[in-house]
């Protein structure tokens, strides 16, 4: 197969200035397991665009670093 990488607007936005490097609260509660840590910065980000905009990541983040937007296609 020939593949290309497409840019997509993802719903989960992480404020890196607030994200704690040793914390995995958002990653552990995401039902779709779409959040991971950037190994270089230790900050969480949305790696897979598979979001139910259900909000556990935002509610359980201890520093308020996460904002969940409604996915663009539904907005």
């Amino acid at each position, binding site marked *: *197969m020939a*593949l290309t990488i497409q840019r997509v607007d993802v719903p989960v936005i992480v404020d890196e200035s607030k994200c704690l490097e040793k914390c995995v609260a958002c990653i552990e509660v995401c*039902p*779709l*397991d779409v959040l991971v840590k950037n190994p270089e910065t230790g900050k969480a980000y949305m790696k*897979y665009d598979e979001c139910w905009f259900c909000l556990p990541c935002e*509610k359980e983040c201890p520093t308020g670093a996460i904002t969940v937007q409604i996915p663009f296609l539904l907005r």
Partner: protein
Amino acid sequence: MNTQWMKTDVLVIGGGTAGTMAGIKAKQANPDLNVLILEKANIRRSGAIAMGMDGVNTAVIPGNSTPEQYVREITISNDGIVDQKAVYQTGKLGYEVIQELESWGVKFQKDAQGNYDLKQVHRVGKYVLPMPEGKDLKQILTRQVKRHKVNVTNRVMATRVMVKDGRAIGAIGFDVRSGDYIIIQANAVILSTGACGRLGLPASGYLYGTYENPTNAGDGYSMAYHAGAELRNIECFQINPLMKDYNGPACAYVASPFGAYTANAEGNRFISCDYWSGQMMLEVWKELNSGNGPVQLKMTHLDETTIAEIERILWANERPSRGRFHEGRGEDYRTAGVEMDISEIGLCSGHSASGVWVNEKAETTIPGLYAAGDMASVPHNYMIGAFVFGRIAGQEAVEYLKGLTYLEPDPEFIELERQRIYAPLAQPGGIPHTQVEYKLRRLVNDYLQPPKVSHKMEIALKKFTQYHESLSLMGAQDPHELMRCMEVHFIRDCAEMAARASLFRRESRWGLYHYNVDYPEKNNDEWFCHVNLKMNESGEMILFKRPVEPYIVDVNIETEVYDVAVR
């Protein structure tokens, strides 16, 4: 990839509403047993109630209603095709479930006298019990799971139930982060994986913008089918009236007791009851196609205090992002109704009647294999029904496995499943799961979304049976993508079942859920029966009629026809 072997007396697959309760009840029944909940997400926030629930829809509370009245109501609303003994369990045991949940810290709404504050949403009886503080439901259940010393393995997705000598002996799956191959031996297996919520494609085109938690991809339907179990009334699709684009409940169950109602664009009522049924959905479909649409949930006539209370409940529970959806569009319940639309199709007995066949003991047709929750065929069972059948499954499984010993799985089966699961990882440059899933679900919309047309469903069936070829082209670059790939396998199985079952039942029933334009009338003479399906010994999907079990509560289905149209 490593291979991990595990052993447990009771294996619960899926740690949502039914699964957590099943685990707790199994452990209560015999604390010496090992009970394991396997969950592909994290039980703290998984399943249909990941963000809590704003009310209970099937609460039979003494003094307000009886199990017999509840069975009558569900029998009529499901056009008579019910196993009343199974429905009766929800009516009989729901009250104990509510009391136990309350003892664990779940709050239900009570009136000034301290009585449960039940609301009428169904056509006749009061079964809706609000729980405006229900946002922590899943954390409370998780706490009880730990307190009861139920083992939990998160982030492992099961793909097949193992069967030997005619009984369930465990399951196979993989760790969706490490990719490890997981083989679990058990003496009883409880499937509680939720609905097939990713069957049709939402109108937005966003694969995960579904009504159900999109993790619920029909896993249990597919696993039960491949284990040889019978599934039931799959043609009775789940179709919901939802907030357009957001695709979540608006939610009439919460708002209608406050005075909100479903109306057409002119603000006029066209249905007499907001309880979700196929008959109600058919009226919504007619209204949308009559030129009187769009359809709305109307609240503009309510006072400020009432609207603020509705907002407080809807924006804190179940789907709390509803508030920001409206905000982003500049919408306000005070000035305009909520635009409603008809959802894509799914399979879910929690709302309709499509599921893995269970009797009143939560037993499937395979000894040692139980099912509970949205995927088990007890019509209109909702959350309380999931708790009740989780409880029954946990208790029955413990009773069943007495004296049983572990059976060694068949090495050839384990090897074949390993090859099947890991095929996409061996071709990381293969077609991405997103595209393979999108096309499959778009075909579901094109050919299966009611009104059903036989010629179209024949095309669907051909395309779904050929779709194995597309599945074999999928590539995964990591275990996470592999999870999504294997979910597409589940979805394909469900799509084929949906097409075959819909073609088999040559009548129309359950309003829009099975509105077949080739056979537009209900035909009780030939089709007052269940349609069951299973895999035969040659690996083919076969369908057959099963008689409706004798009623235990008298209902004359010829005269008591469910009709909610306003004429």
